[in-house]
C-alpha cells in the first residue's frame, strides 16, 4: 500500500516541472502552481518514506533504488528552502524535471516499496543518510551554478529579454551556490567519517575512490575560492563538473563494482 504514495508525489512533481516551464512565459499563476506542486509532492513523498520506515524491519533505503528515493526527497527538500521565494522559483526548472526522472528510476528499481531484506545498523543508516544529504546539497549547488551560467550568458550576449524573464542576480547565485557547496561538503565529510567507523581493509572500492575524488574537487574549489578568489563563471563550471561526477560517474562505478 505504501508504494501507492509514489504516484501523488510523481504527479505533483511532474505538475511542478510543467508549471515552471509555463512560468517562463512570465505568468505568476504558473509559478504559484509550480510551488504548490513541489510542496504537495514533497509531503506525499515524506508520507511514502515514513510508511516505508514503519513497514520495514531495518534501514529501508539500503538498495541503490531506495537510496535514490531518499536522495530525491533530500534534493526537493533542500530546494524548498529557496524555491518557494519568487526570485528563485526558476531553479525549479532545473530541479523538478531531474527529481521526476530520478523518482521514476527509483520506482522502476523497486526503491519505493517495502524492503525487508536489508536490515543495516544505525551507523550505516547514518552514513548513507549523510552521504545522500551531502550529494543532494551538491546537486542543488550545481542547479544554482547552472542558473548562474545561464544568467551570465544572457548578460554577456546582451539578451534583450534579460529584464523580462528575471533570474536571481549573478552575485547572489554565486554566493548561494558556494554556500550550498560548503554546507554540503561539511555533511559529506561527516558521512565519510561515519563510514570510516565500519570500514575494513579490503573494502576500498571504485565508488569510494570516486566519492573521495568528488570531496577533494569541492574542497580544492572552495579553498581556491577563499584564497585565490576563484568565483563567478569558473567556480560555477567547477560545481557543474562536480555534479557530473556525482550524477554520472558515481552511479556508473557503483553498478560496475
Amino acid at each position: 500500500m505504501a508504494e501507492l504514495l509514489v504516484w501523488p508525489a510523481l504527479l505533483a512533481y511532474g505538475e511542478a516541472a510543467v508549471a515552471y516551464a509555463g512560468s517562463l512565459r512570465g505568468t505568476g499563476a504558473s509559478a504559484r502552481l509550480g510551488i504548490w506542486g513541489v510542496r504537495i509532492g514533497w509531503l506525499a513523498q515524506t508520507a511514502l518514506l515514513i510508511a516505508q520506515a514503519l513497514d520495514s524491519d531495518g534501514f529501508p533505503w539500503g538498495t541503490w533504488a531506495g537510496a535514490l528515493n531518499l536522495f530525491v526527497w533530500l534534493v526537493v527538500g533542500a530546494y524548498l528552502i529557496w524555491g518557494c521565494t519568487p526570485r528563485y522559483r526558476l531553479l525549479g526548472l532545473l530541479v523538478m524535471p531531474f527529481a521526476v526522472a530520478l523518482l521514476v528510476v527509483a520506482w522502476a528499481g523497486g526503491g519505493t516499496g517495502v524492503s525487508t531484506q536489508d536490515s543495516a545498523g544505525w551507523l550505516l543508516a547514518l552514513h548513507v543518510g549523510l552521504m545522500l544529504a551531502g550529494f543532494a546539497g551538491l546537486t542543488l549547488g550545481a542547479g544554482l551554478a547552472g542558473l548562474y551560467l545561464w544568467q551570465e550568458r544572457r548578460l554577456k550576449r546582451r539578451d534583450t529579454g534579460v529584464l523580462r524573464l528575471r533570474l536571481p542576480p549573478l552575485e547572489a547565485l554565486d554566493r548561494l551556490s558556494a554556500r550550498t557547496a560548503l554546507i554540503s561538503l561539511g555533511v559529506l565529510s561527516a558521512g565519510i567519517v561515519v563510514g570510516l567507523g565500519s570500514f575494513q581493509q579490503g573494502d576500498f572500492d571504485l565508488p569510494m575512490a570516486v566519492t573521495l575524488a568528488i570531496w577533494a574537487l569541492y574542497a580544492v574549489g572552495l579553498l581556491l575560492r577563499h584564497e585565490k578568489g576563484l568565483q563567478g563563471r569558473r567556480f560555477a563550471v567547477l560545481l557543474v563538473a562536480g555534479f557530473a561526477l556525482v550524477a554520472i560517474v558515481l552511479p556508473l562505478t557503483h553498478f560496475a563494482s
Partner: protein
Amino acid sequence: MRLALVGVSHRQAPVELRERVAVDPAGATSLARELADGCEAVVLSTCNRTELYLASDGTSDHLDERASRTLLALAGNDGAALAPVLYRLGDDSAALHLFRVAAGLDSLVPGEGEILGQVRDAFEGGSTGPLLDRLFRQALHAGRRARVETAIGESPASVPAAAAALAQQVFGDLAGRRIVLVGAGKMSELTARNLRSRGALIEAVANRTAAHGEELAARVESRAAGLEEIPALLATADVVVTSTSAPGFVVEPASAAAALRGRRGRPLLFVDLAVPRDVDPALATIDGCFVYDIDDLEAVVEASLAGRRVEAVRAEQIVAVEAERFREWQASLAVVPAIASLHAHAEEIRSGELAKAEGRLGRLPESERRLVESVTSQIVAKILHLPTVRMKEAAAGADGVVYADVVRHLFGLGEEEQS
C-alpha cells in the same frame, strides 16, 4: 446620479495646447472647489492630460457644458484650437476611462507608475460626494490591481532605468555599490540619479574638463577625478557609466587589465552611453566584465516596452471588470430610494400593527415582547429580501427604473405624501 468627464490629453492635443490648460495641484484643488457648485468635481492635471470629472443629479449635458466652458476659459486665446480636441465622456465610458488612466493604460508609456499617485492627489484635492468618492476609490483599486496582478509596471521604460535594472541583475541590491561616471553628460547624470535612488554611491566623476566634472560631482554628492585615474577606479568600482565625446575608446582592455586582475573575479558592469563608444567591446570577453552600449540598452528598453504592451492586455481585462462593478453600483443607485421606501413602508406597517395589539401584548412579560418584536422584524426582512435582491439585479441590467416604478405603484409608495 450622472457622471461627466471633459478633458484633453496627449492622444489628441500637442503639448502647446496641453500646457495652456495644465494646473498645479493647488490650482486643481481650487478649480475643483469652483466647479463644485451644486455638484461634485475632481480635476486631474498631469503633463499628459487635464481632465475634469463632474457628477450631480442633473443631466450629463449640463455638466458637459460647464466643464467644457471651464477648460476653454483656461485655454484663453487658444480656446478655438482646443475645442475640437476636447473629449466628452459620460457615466460608464467616463468611469472606464478613469480606470484605464489609473492603471497606466492611457499613458505614453504603458503602466508608468506616477499616474496612480497623481490620480490619488487629484481625488484628495477634489470636492467629492458619493459618486466621485466611489469612482476614484475604485479607480485607485483598479490601478493597484493592474500593477500587482500583471507585470505591466515591472520593466524599465527608459535607458537610465534599464541601466539600473541591469546593474540589479548583476549585483542584486545596489545599496553601497560603487559607481564611477566617466564623462559629465546629461544621460550620464540621469543614470547616476537612477542608480543613487536605489542606494548606490557615486564614487567619482572622471571628466576631461575638470570644471564640468566638478559641477556634476557636486550635484551627485561625489568627487571629481581626471581621466588618468580611470584604471585605478576600475579596481574598486562595480558599475562604470561612460558618456564622453571622445573620438576613440576611453576604456581599453590593455589599460584595464591590471585593475581587473585585482578584483578577484568580482563582476564589473560597463554602461556605455556614448557615441562613438567609450568602452572597447573586447572588454566583454574578460571574465566578470559586462559591457552594454547605447544600442543594447535601447533594445532592452524596447523589449521591456513590448512586454508591457503584452501585460497591458491583461490589465485591460482587470480594468473592464472593475468598470463593470462600478456600473452595477451606479445603476443600483436608481433603485435605492425605492428600496428604502419599501423597507420604511413595511416597517411602518409592522410597528403600526404591533401598536394596535399593544393592549393584548402589554400583558406579556418583557422577554416575550422582545421575542414578538424580533419575530415580526425577521418576517418583514425575509419577505423583502428577494424583492430587494431582484431590484438590484434589475438595476444592473438597466431595468432598475422600471422595477422601481412598479414597486412604488404596487405598494403605493409616496402616494400618502402626495395626497
